[in-house]
């Protein structure tokens, strides 16, 4: 199989020579492919990161799905559906990449459903008004793009290729979101107020998407050395802020941070300290929608059981028919 027959290093046989040779490949910017030798920890880190990323894409469909039936026009509805379908696709590209590391898709999915695996904290916030569909596309997909563009050069081949595919599709997501915001911000005073409200609620959770501050990030050093990650959380967050503030100004909306100010000396925006307690609390499961999201995923999985069973029985029947013909 393409993805199996892994030349797995048994626990403990990560000899210094092998580790050294591996690091040299990484330093030479060589991509690591599925059946190449790799340290146990490299494999484990990737499985964790890629599957978490896949789960985020899948759960990420839910906040926007909230607005499909109430989109203000057929055009917006079609766009939103296409965007949500892309997110499902992103999840599948990523599960496909994680499987090449020897983890089964079934196991990854069970870990999501049981709550053992994590997904991005942003999707545990509600989408309260139509402008949220705009703010999510603009800011959440915008933040995701910052992360994902950086990951296109990650050292693991299948992950990098999945990210390239995903990045090609993300720009549409961000632009359709900004387009919604623009229409609302330039609309009636009520519409503008809805857009401002959506921005107020989405801004900080979007900044948290980049993860903990570098000084508190537990996995960063080794991941940078192995070029799984190529930029630090704080660098990417700063880049996102610098790119986004002028876009908010163009909308005529204000970013909910009284300390936000362009700093001429460093050429970046200064901003307030992020409320890290909130991030850790949401990750722990106490966000406004954690339970709702998990329930929705579990229900979808249970409701789909009969389809999976029917497909399996049908495939078996077809196999038998073919076999009988061959025998006859």
């Amino acid at each position: 199989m393409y993805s199996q027959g892994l030349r797995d290093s048994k626990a403990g046989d990560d000899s210094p020579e092998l580790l050294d040779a591996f690091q040299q490949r990484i330093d030479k910017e060589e991509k690591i492919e599925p059946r190449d030798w790799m340290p146990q920890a490299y494999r484990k880190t990737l499985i964790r990161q890629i599957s978490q990323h896949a789960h985020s894409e899948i759960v990420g469909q839910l906040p926007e799905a909230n607005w499909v039936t109430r989109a203000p026009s057929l055009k917006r509805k079609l766009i939103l559906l296409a965007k949500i379908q892309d997110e499902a696709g992103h999840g599948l590209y990523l599960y496909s990449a994680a499987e090449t590391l020897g983890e089964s898709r079934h196991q990854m999915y069970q870990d999501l459903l049981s709550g053992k695996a994590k997904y991005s904290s942003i999707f545990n916030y509600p989408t309260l008004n139509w402008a949220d569909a705009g703010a999510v596309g603009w800011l959440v997909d915008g933040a995701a793009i910052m992360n994902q563009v950086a990951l296109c050069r990650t050292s693991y081949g299948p992950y990098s290729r999945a990210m390239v595919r995903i990045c090609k599709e993300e720009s549409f997501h961000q632009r359709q979101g900004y387009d919604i915001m623009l229409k609302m911000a330039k609309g009636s005073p009520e519409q503008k107020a809805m857009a401002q409200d959506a921005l107020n609620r989405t801004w900080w959770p979007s900044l948290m998407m980049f993860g903990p501050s570098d000084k508190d990030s537990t996995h960063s050093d080794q991941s940078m050395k192995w070029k799984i990650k190529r930029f630090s959380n704080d660098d990417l967050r700063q880049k996102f802020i610098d790119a986004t503030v002028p876009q908010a100004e163009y909308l005529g909306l204000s970013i909910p941070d009284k300390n936000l100010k362009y700093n001429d000396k460093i050429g970046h925006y200064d901003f307030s300290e992020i409320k890290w307690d909130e991030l850790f609390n949401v990750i722990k499961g106490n966000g406004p929608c954690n339970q709702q999201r998990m329930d929705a995923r579990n229900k979808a999985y249970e409701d789909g059981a009969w389809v999976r069973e029917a497909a399996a029985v049908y495939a078996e029947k077809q196999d038998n028919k073919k076999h009988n013909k061959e025998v006859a």
Partner: protein
Amino acid sequence: MKLYEVFLRAKSGLSHKHVGSVHATDAQMAMQNARDLYTRREEGESIWVVDSTQIISSNPNDKAAYFEPAVDKIYRHPSFYPFDKEVKNI
């Protein structure tokens, strides 16, 4: 569910290229899933799906034994035969 590897031909004149994989109970479902997943933006005009257990691949362990013999056969390349500038169109 079985794992199928997916190959796409972007347009006629090009060969099929591996793009990823899908899960399906049979070949027909694999084909439909591959279409939905990998060709939402006209990325292809022809799809191959292959039951992943049917792929036979070389082993990374054998990389040297398999591919290194080509390294020292430089006489296989046209640059191994330099001529004077007077010799033209060759």
